C-alpha cells in the first residue's frame, strides 16, 4: 500500500475501466496503478449500491481530495489538493473522457460490453500526450471550465475576410466543417446551418492541434480520423489539417464524413490558400503577436481592475485577460496575514500559479452563482490577495479580479465599465457566430 500513498501525494488524473483495469495515468506507468485501480473500481461500484442510482463524487481527507466521474464503461479519477474546487477537477475529467472519445469514438463502450477484459491501453497507445495535454490545459486555461473557446482578437474587417475565404470551401461540398485557428485560438469557423460545431468539439479540435506535434511539424498537410462527440459520438470524421501561414500559425482544419474525401479537401485547401491576401495575413500576424493576442487588463485604464474572464453565451466564446505575472498582495510584513511565504523567482511558474489560483477563485464564484438556490446574479469575495467579483446574466458571465482592498461598490463600477467595453468590442474580441454554408 506504500505505492498507493505516493499516488495520493501529488496531483494526478487517472482512468480505469469498469473492470478495475488501468487505462491511463498522467504520471505514466498505468500498470503500477493496478492495485489502486482495482480498489477504485470496487469502491465506485460499491458506492453505487444495488439500485445503481448513487454515484460516488468525491472523497476528502488529509488535505487531499479524490474526485470521481463515471462515464461507463470508464471511471475517471482526479487526485487534487482539497483547496481546489471539486467542480474544476470534475470538468477536467469530463474533458479527459471527451478526449478519449475524440481519439477512439464512443465505440469503446461496445468493445468493453462485448469483452470486459479488453485492455484499452492497446488502442490508446501513443496518445498519452493528448490526454496529459488536456489535463494541463484544463488546469491553466478557462476553456474547459466554461465550455467556451478563446478567439484571436481581430479587426472586424479581417475576421469577415477570413469568413469569406471559408465560405469558398463550400463549393467542395464534401466539407462538413471548416475551422481556422492560430495559437490555439479560433479565427473563424463554418458549419452546416443547423449544426454549428459545439464548444466542446471545438475545444477538442484545438487540443488535438496543440498536443499532436506531428500535425504541426508536417509542413504540408495531414489527414487524421477524429471523433467529435457533440456531433456524432460513435463515428469518425476525417480531418485535413494544414498550416496556411507559419508566421501567424494560421491553421486550417477541414472535416468531412467521407473517408475518401482527401483529394476534395486538398483541393479546397489549395484554393483557399491562393486567395489569402497579404493584408489579411498581415493583420492576423499583428493580432497574434505575443503582446496582442490577449487583452492586458491594466491597459484598459479601469481603476482597481487586475484581471478578468468574460464568457459570451451566444458565441460559446470567452475572453480571458493575460494572467498577471504575480500579485502584490497585502503587505506581507504585517503580522503573518498571508500563507504565501514561498516567493518563487521563476516568473513562468509565478504566472502559472497565478493563473491557476485566479481560475480556482472564478470557479468558486461560478459554482456559487450557478448552484445557489437564491439565484444570485452578483457575488463579491475578498481576501488578502485580491478581491473577486462574479456576475452572471442571460447573455454573459463576467469574473473580475481587483486590488485586495477594493470595495464591492468600486469593483462593481469597474466591472460595469469593463462590460461596456467588452460589449463595444465584441466583434473584435470574438467570433460572434459561426458561418453557415449557403444553400
Amino acid at each position, binding site marked *: 500500500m506504500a505505492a498507493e500513498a505516493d499516488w495520493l501525494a501529488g496531483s494526478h488524473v487517472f482512468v480505469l475501466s469498469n473492470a478495475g*483495469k488501468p487505462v491511463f495515468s498522467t504520471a505514466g506507468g498505468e500498470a503500477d496503478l*493496478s492495485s*489502486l485501480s*482495482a480498489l477504485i473500481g*470496487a469502491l465506485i*461500484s460499491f458506492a453505487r449500491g444495488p439500485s445503481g442510482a448513487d454515484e460516488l463524487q468525491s472523497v476528502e481527507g488529509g488535505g487531499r481530495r479524490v474526485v470521481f466521474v463515471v462515464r461507463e464503461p470508464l471511471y475517471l479519477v482526479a487526485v487534487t489538493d482539497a483547496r481546489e474546487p471539486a467542480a474544476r477537477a470534475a470538468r477536467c475529467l469530463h474533458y479527459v473522457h471527451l478526449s478519449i472519445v475524440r481519439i477512439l469514438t464512443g465505440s469503446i463502450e461496445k468493445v*468493453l460490453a462485448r469483452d470486459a477484459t479488453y485492455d484499452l491501453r492497446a488502442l490508446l497507445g501513443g496518445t498519452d500526450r493528448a490526454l496529459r495535454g488536456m489535463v494541463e490545459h484544463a488546469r491553466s486555461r478557462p476553456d474547459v471550465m466554461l465550455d467556451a473557446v478563446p478567439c484571436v482578437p481581430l479587426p472586424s474587417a479581417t475576421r469577415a475576410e477570413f469568413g469569406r475565404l471559408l465560405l469558398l470551401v463550400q463549393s467542395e461540398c464534401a466539407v462538413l466543417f471548416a475551422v481556422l485557428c492560430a495559437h490555439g485560438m479560433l479565427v473563424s469557423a463554418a458549419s452546416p446551418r*443547423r449544426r454549428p460545431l459545439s464548444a466542446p468539439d471545438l475545444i477538442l479540435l484545438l487540443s488535438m492541434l496543440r498536443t499532436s506535434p506531428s500535425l504541426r511539424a508536417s509542413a504540408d498537410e495531414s489527414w487524421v480520423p477524429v471523433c467529435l462527440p457533440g456531433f456524432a459520438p460513435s463515428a*469518425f470524421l476525417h480531418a485535413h489539417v494544414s498550416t496556411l501561414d507559419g508566421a501567424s500559425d494560421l491553421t486550417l482544419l477541414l472535416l468531412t464524413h467521407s473517408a475518401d474525401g482527401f483529394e476534395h479537401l486538398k483541393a479546397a485547401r489549395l484554393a483557399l490558400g491562393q486567395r489569402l491576401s497579404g493584408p489579411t495575413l498581415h493583420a492576423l500576424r499583428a493580432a497574434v503577436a505575443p503582446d496582442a493576442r490577449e487583452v492586458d487588463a491594466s491597459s484598459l485604464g479601469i481603476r482597481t481592475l487586475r484581471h478578468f474572464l468574460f464568457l459570451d453565451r451566444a458565441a460559446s466564446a470567452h475572453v480571458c485577460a493575460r494572467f498577471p505575472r504575480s500579485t502584490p498582495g497585502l503587505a506581507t510584513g504585517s503580522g503573518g496575514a498571508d500563507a504565501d511565504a514561498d516567493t518563487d523567482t521563476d516568473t513562468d511558474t509565478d504566472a502559472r500559479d497565478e493563473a491557476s489560483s485566479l481560475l480556482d477563485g472564478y470557479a468558486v464564484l461560478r459554482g456559487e452563482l450557478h448552484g445557489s438556490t437564491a439565484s444570485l446574479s452578483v457575488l463579491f469575495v475578498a481576501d488578502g490577495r485580491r478581491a473577486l467579483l462574479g456576475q452572471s446574466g442571460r447573455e454573459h458571465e463576467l469574473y473580475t479580479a481587483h486590488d485586495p482592498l477594493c470595495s464591492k461598490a468600486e469593483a462593481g463600477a469597474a466591472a460595469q465599465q469593463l462590460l461596456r467595453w467588452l460589449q463595444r468590442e465584441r466583434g473584435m474580441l470574438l467570433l460572434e457566430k459561426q458561418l453557415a454554408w449557403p444553400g
Partner: protein
Amino acid sequence: MAPKKVLLKVIILGDSGVGKTSLMNRYVNQKFSNQYKATIGADFLTKEIQVDERLVTMQIWDTAGQERFQSLGVAFYRGADSCVLVFDVNVAKTFENLDSWREEFLLQAGPRDPEAFPFVVLGNKVDLDARIVSQKRALSWCQSKNNIPFFETSAKDNINIEQAFEVIARNALAQERVEDIYLPDTVDLSDQKDKQSAQNCAAC
C-alpha cells in the same frame, strides 16, 4: 501498438478461511502468517512476472469469502481474465461449495465463452494432517468441468504456488482475443438531424 506489459485480472474465490489471502500474500509478498484475519470486501495486490517473452502484471483480486461481503457482485467479477477457486483439503464443505462459486462467477462475470473460461482449482492447506478431500476426488471434479487444472498447495510451506500462478497466467494469456473487435461506425448523414448537408453532398 500493444502495451508491452499485459495486465491480467485474476479473481480468487472460495469459502471463508480456506486461505485465499494467505495464498495471495505468499505469492506476492513471500510471507505467511498463521493468524486469521477475515478479508473485508476485497484486497488487491499486483505481481509482475515473465511468461516466456511477455511481461505480465497480475492484478489479483482477493475476495471476502464471508457471505456478508458478497455485495460487490458484478463489479468484482467483470472483466476477469482468470478465476482461481480455492478449497481447504481438510474441510469437505469448502470443496463441495466449489460448484456454487464457479456458477456464481460465470453468472456474474458473464464471460463470452463460459465453457472455455480459464479457471484453476487449488486445494490448499496440504501441510495439515487432517485431509478429508482426496486428490482423486478433486481431480475428478476438475475433469468434469472441462479439465480445470488442479494444484494441491500450501501457503504456509510454499508448495506449488509459483507453479499454480504460472498456469493461471499462461491459460489467461491463451485466451487473448485474436480478432480486433474495435470497429467504429461511419457517419451516416441521413441519420443526422440536418438532412440539408446530406442533400448538398448528394448533389456533388
